[in-house]
């Protein structure tokens, strides 16, 4: 397990060298999107319309932050559960998205798309939203402002602490529950 400092957008080379269990301190540009923003992006793609973000090398953070307090750029901003974005993730990876940040397990289709397109799935600590927000230095709503916490935001992050959960060669960090030990 290695520790890397990496810059987002992620290069293909950076994404492909990561292995599950690696720690990444990520700096650069990250986009926020939850279920509703993913659906909107998907609809825009269906219509052949321009997207409000550049997908090549993009890192998408599954988060709906709380409102910023005076003197802060953002409120608490920890990861939401990722499986709700599973139906959208493979298409975004096929178009250049190199990583998503969330918490919780992904389905087989997402894991396969990480292998197909050389991408990774990062985990951030769920329920540590105040702490993670200290790594966010700038935040700007760039699309869907009417959706409030679900709007698409462009963040500039510094050394956001992430764990590689699923890598581009089929590795996974989450443990399998020990059903036998629990008597199941």
């Amino acid at each position, binding site marked *: 397990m290695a520790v890397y400092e990496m810059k987002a957008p992620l290069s293909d080379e950076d994404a492909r060298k990561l292995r599950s269990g690696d720690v990444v301190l990520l700096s650069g540009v990250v986009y926020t999107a939850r279920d509703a923003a993913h659906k909107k992006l998907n609809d825009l793609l269906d219509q052949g319309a321009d997207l409000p973000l550049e997908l090549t090398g993009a890192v998408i953070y599954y988060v709906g932050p*709380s409102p910023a307090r005076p003197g802060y750029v953002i409120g608490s901003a920890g990861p939401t559960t990722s499986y709700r974005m599973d139906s959208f993730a493979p298409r975004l990876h096929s178009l250049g998205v190199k990583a998503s940040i969330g918490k919780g397990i992904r389905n087989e289709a997402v894991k396969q798309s990480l292998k197909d397109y050389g991408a990774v799935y990062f985990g951030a*600590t769920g*329920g540590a*939203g105040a702490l993670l927000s200290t790594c966010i230095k700038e935040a700007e709503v760039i699309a869907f402002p009417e959706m409030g*916490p679900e709007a698409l935001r462009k963040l500039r992050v510094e050394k956001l602490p992430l*764990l590689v959960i699923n890598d581009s060669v089929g590795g996974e960090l*989450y*443990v399998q*529950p020990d059903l036998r030990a629990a008597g199941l």
Partner: protein
Amino acid sequence: MKRISAQAVTKAVRDMCISANRYQPEDVKAAIKAGEAGEDSPTAKEVFRQLSENIDLAAGTGLPLCQDTGLAVLFVTLGQEVYVEGNLSEAINEGVRQGYGEGLLRKSACDPFSRKNTGDNTPAVIHYDIVPGEALRIAFMAKGGGAENMSRVMMLAPAEGWEGVKKFVLTRVAESRSNPCPPIIIGIGIGGTFEHSAKLAKLALMRKLDDVNPEPDLAAKEEELLGLVNRLGIGPMGLGGRHTALGLKILTSPCHIASFPLAVNIQCHSSRHEEVEL
């Protein structure tokens, strides 16, 4: 007869919304500290360390503990001798409106189909219980969506009994894996009807982690099942470890002779709730 103004109710609810989302209860803080000491895995220790740091940071800055500041769930225990001057339900919702607005908490309430946000985190989910006496007690919980989504109600066959309960709970936790932000807290409601079991399960989450069920048989069952849950080894954030759950609490109620309602309400480690008496 005791008179309580709607404004006093609004103020109390407002304050609890803000405070519960900022300050982790002492029992949860202690369990997270103990968790860090009780893990061997550096990854599990690091998750607990980050959670403790997050708790201190939230208390120090006023940032909410988690960006998901929850739907507002309230259990109101209204003494029969209390006269509330004004509209009690509206006073509670106004407290939620003010708390989530002025506290800069996330508004997470939306229409299920249109997904349009109601804009002020109302309506709150309010449960009422009428009891003798002159007290009005209001318990507030900020219930996040990630853990709530992992919760289930099951109508077991009565013959399945305790073995059926264990199997259902363990399977639910195993399938949830890292989704609900483990280490989790498990509220279990057994008995009553379909909906009553779910209410009991949520009410069980209001209990302190370090309390002991006054019924010895249930206390033993809680201990046994918590032990089995932790043998799953899911660990903090699903990364492996001894702490899959910090607590497991059971509440029961008599049920129909044909039924064995079972509700499992999952709570994340950020168990945010407070109670006030007016």
